[in-house]
């Protein structure tokens, strides 16, 4: 029975793959010309950044990015909602490797610098808040493995503030622009570049913090909640 | 909003709002609840009386608004509506009084009276519905609001009865809905009209319309307790006596019968139904149910079950009257709708009194009860004689008119059915009457309770006497201007003379 199920699933997957491949070929053949690239090129000058991908992410389709950061915040807080403070002090999770400790002193400042560079580079070449935030988080992971104390990552108001900071600033800009009479998320003329940089900076911090918090969130909580209405 | 539009709504709201207030009152505030109940019942009676007077003078009470694309919610008071509305308004008042006494010191009264009021609101809606859609709306509301009443006692038997009740009636509701939706697809939103809608209709539709007719009658037949879908009715007897009284005399079974009257006359039109040959099979079925119910009643020892089978038989008289083509048959059927209600509610009140006062539930325990409870027993006797058709009581008027209608429609076999059924009625009612008055008390009463001066609780004492008075009066005064008979004639005239 089980084998049959496996075979059927494999056959279905293969069939789907073939159909998909054919569809890709057909779609590539019968592609319709769209004026999107021209529009994009024409509007790039007004977006406040030079790199088109960053322009799409933080200006043309900034709404997507706002929601995307929301998704990250959700994941982050769901993660810490399952964690407990105690686990952070768990010595079993701490490495005491001498070499790691020594390397860390070199790597941490270097990685922080790299993160800053990536953030700055985002406006005119590949790079940006997410890449910088990921490097920041990696730095944090390294520090944590090396046993450096990081009090701010404990579930507490500071952590929550950190989680939500980037999102909140982004949203604040969005709502402020809506209240100022522009459309929601529409940056005031001339301020786009500066605002995008500011948003990206706080986003970097928050993304780093969220990813780190998710790494740290450990599943130890002895507290047990009785289900609704008690035992069944 | 003008008064003519307001009155039908008020008639509905009087019991709907009462239900809401009663649900909101705490369980312990019995006095206030009784007050609300009685006030609402009296108010409703007043409104219905005013509307009846208006309808008699030709005022058109109607209100409608669009509920769904192509479907409107419509209340309209015509003469037929007032017949049913009047019956339920009068009997609701009496039953409320009775129920207050009957449920004294029992739990869950808030729930009981709340659903009781909802039930009456649904009945009023059924009476005043101006089209099939609105009728269906209240018809289903009635199903739902009676369920808690049937299972009120919360015993395993009551729940079982409730389950069967709901299976039968919801099943019937589904068939009815199918019929209504189909008809709507064929002909659109049809308001009830005295002469029906299909005097001249494309013959290509005849086949479908016949099917729709069968669906509608089958769906309504469930509540009317027609054979072979009557099974829920005897079981539902586990409900408290006032519920049985209301179920049998006014609400549930009458809703089914009333629906059939509406469908035959006001949707299809009696002409169409007659020409399509739809009446004849229905007549046979109704006649069979009349005899079947009476025969089954003969063997029941439980008093309420015997009354239940009697109801199955009696309600089919109404349908039999409908199937007799001609004004006389119509009058007979319609007037029985009312007469049967008054007689049957009297019988159930009395049965409830025996159960509450003496603890008697079975026919063979009733020996000599006439001496202990003379007033109740007189009422019971009068109603039983009425059922049998002894002149000049209500039942006689019905049976006489029906017989005349059968002859007019050249369906002589129906007269035979009527005679046979009367004999059977006598066979299952007279022994009870005999036991009440002529046999000595055989054993001590199973569970006797005493209330001061009267033979039973005052709340229980008066309602059967009032209904007894009514059933004598409607028989004696049948030829006068405001009797149910004259009213039914008024309706029939409007149906046959467009």
């Amino acid at each position, binding site marked *: 029975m089980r084998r049959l199920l496996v075979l059927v699933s*494999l056959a279905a997957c293969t069939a789907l793959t073939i159909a*998909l491949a054919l569809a890709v070929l057909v779609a590539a053949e019968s592609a319709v010309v769209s004026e999107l690239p021209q529009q994009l090129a024409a509007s790039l000058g007004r977006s406040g950044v030079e790199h088109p991908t960053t322009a799409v992410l933080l200006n043309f389709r900034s709404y997507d990015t706002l929601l995307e950061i929301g998704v990250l915040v959700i994941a982050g807080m769901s993660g810490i909602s399952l964690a407990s403070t105690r686990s952070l002090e768990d010595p079993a999770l701490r490495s005491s490797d001498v070499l790691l400790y020594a390397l860390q002193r070199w790597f941490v400042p270097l990685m922080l610098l790299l993160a800053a560079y990536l953030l700055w580079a985002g406006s005119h070449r590949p790079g940006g808040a997410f890449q910088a935030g990921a490097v920041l988080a990696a730095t944090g992971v390294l520090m944590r493995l090396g046993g450096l104390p990081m009090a701010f990552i404990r579930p507490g108001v500071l952590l929550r503030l950190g989680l939500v900071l980037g999102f909140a600033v982004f949203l604040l800009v969005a709502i402020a622009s809506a209240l100022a009479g522009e459309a929601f998320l529409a940056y005031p003329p001339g301020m786009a570049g500066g605002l995008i940089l500011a948003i990206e900076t706080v986003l970097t911090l928050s993304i780093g913090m969220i990813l780190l918090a998710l790494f740290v969130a450990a599943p130890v909580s002895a507290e047990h909640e009785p289900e609704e209405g008690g035992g069944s | 909003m003008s008064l003519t539009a307001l009155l039908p709504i008020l008639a509905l709201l009087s019991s709907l709002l009462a239900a809401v207030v009663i649900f909101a009152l705490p369980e312990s505030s019995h006095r206030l609840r009784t007050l609300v109940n009685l006030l609402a019942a009296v108010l409703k009676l007043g409104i219905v009386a005013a509307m009846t007077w208006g309808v008699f003078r030709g005022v058109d009470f109607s209100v409608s608004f669009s509920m769904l694309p192509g479907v409107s919610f419509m209340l309209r008071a015509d003469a037929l509506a007032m017949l049913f509305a009047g019956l339920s308004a009068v009997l609701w008042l009496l039953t409320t009084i009775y129920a207050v006494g009957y449920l004294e010191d029992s739990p869950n009264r808030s729930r009981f009276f709340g659903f009781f009021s909802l039930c009456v609101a649904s009945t009023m809606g059924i009476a005043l519905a101006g089209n099939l859609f609105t009728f269906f709306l209240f018809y289903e509301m009635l199903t739902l609001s009676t369920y808690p009443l049937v299972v009120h006692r919360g015993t395993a038997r009551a729940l079982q009865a409730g389950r069967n009740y709901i299976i039968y009636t919801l099943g019937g509701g589904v068939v009815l809905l199918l019929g209504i939706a189909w008809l709507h697809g064929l002909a659109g939103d049809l308001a009830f009209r005295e002469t029906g809608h299909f005097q001249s209709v494309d013959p290509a539709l005849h086949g479908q319309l016949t099917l729709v007719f069968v669906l509608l009658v089958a769906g309504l037949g469930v509540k009317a307790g027609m054979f072979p879908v009557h099974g829920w009715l005897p079981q539902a007897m586990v409900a408290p006596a006032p519920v049985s009284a209301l179920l049998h005399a006014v609400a549930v079974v009458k809703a089914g019968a009333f629906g059939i009257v509406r469908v035959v006359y006001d949707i299809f039109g009696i002409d169409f139904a007659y020409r399509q040959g739809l009446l004849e099979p229905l007549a046979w079925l109704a006649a069979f149910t009349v005899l079947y119910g009476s025969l089954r009643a003969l063997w029941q020892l439980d008093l309420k079950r015997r009354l239940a089978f009697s109801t199955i038989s009696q309600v089919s008289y109404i349908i039999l009257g409908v199937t007799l083509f001609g004004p006389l048959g119509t009058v007979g059927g319609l007037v029985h709708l009312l007469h049967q209600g008054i007689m049957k509610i009297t019988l159930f009140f009395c049965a409830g009194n025996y159960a509450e006062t003496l603890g008697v539930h079975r026919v063979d325990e009733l020996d000599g009860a006439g001496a202990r409870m003379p007033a109740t027993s007189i009422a019971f006797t009068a109603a039983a004689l009425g059922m049998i058709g002894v002149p000049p009581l209500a039942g006689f008027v019905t049976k006489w008119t029906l017989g005349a209608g059968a002859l007019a429609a050249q369906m002589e076999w129906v007269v035979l059915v009527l005679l046979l059924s009367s004999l059977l009625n006598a066979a299952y009612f007279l022994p009870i009457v005999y036991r009440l008055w002529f046999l000595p008390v055989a054993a001590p009463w199973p569970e006797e309770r005493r209330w001061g001066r009267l033979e039973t609780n005052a709340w229980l004492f008066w309602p059967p006497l009032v209904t007894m008075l009514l059933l004598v009066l409607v028989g004696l005064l049948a030829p006068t201007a405001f009797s149910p008979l004259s009213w039914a004639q008024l309706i029939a005239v409007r149906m046959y003379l467009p």
Partner: protein
Amino acid sequence: MSPDLLYALAGVGLCGIGLAGFLLLDHLLRRLLAFNLLGSGVFLVLVGLAQHRGGPDPVPQALVLTGIVVAIAATALAIVLIRRYFHLTGRTSLADAGDGQS
């Protein structure tokens, strides 16, 4: 056939593998990896197909970036849930113990 189309077809292949893994594997982490594989396949199709049409196109690149972040968020949340689930029950799969009622 342009190299971009090749990317898209490779993405299709990854989708097939990922889907098969997702359906057939019981171990929660493996299923999660299969999901990531599937996600990568979808992103490749998105970029490759669009690129084949009119050269480098920043819109799908931005979409994929957003998609990656969403996928990472989902993956991270899933890992936290899986770790805690494992911690509490010692199980690594959802294979059944009752119908979810405690």
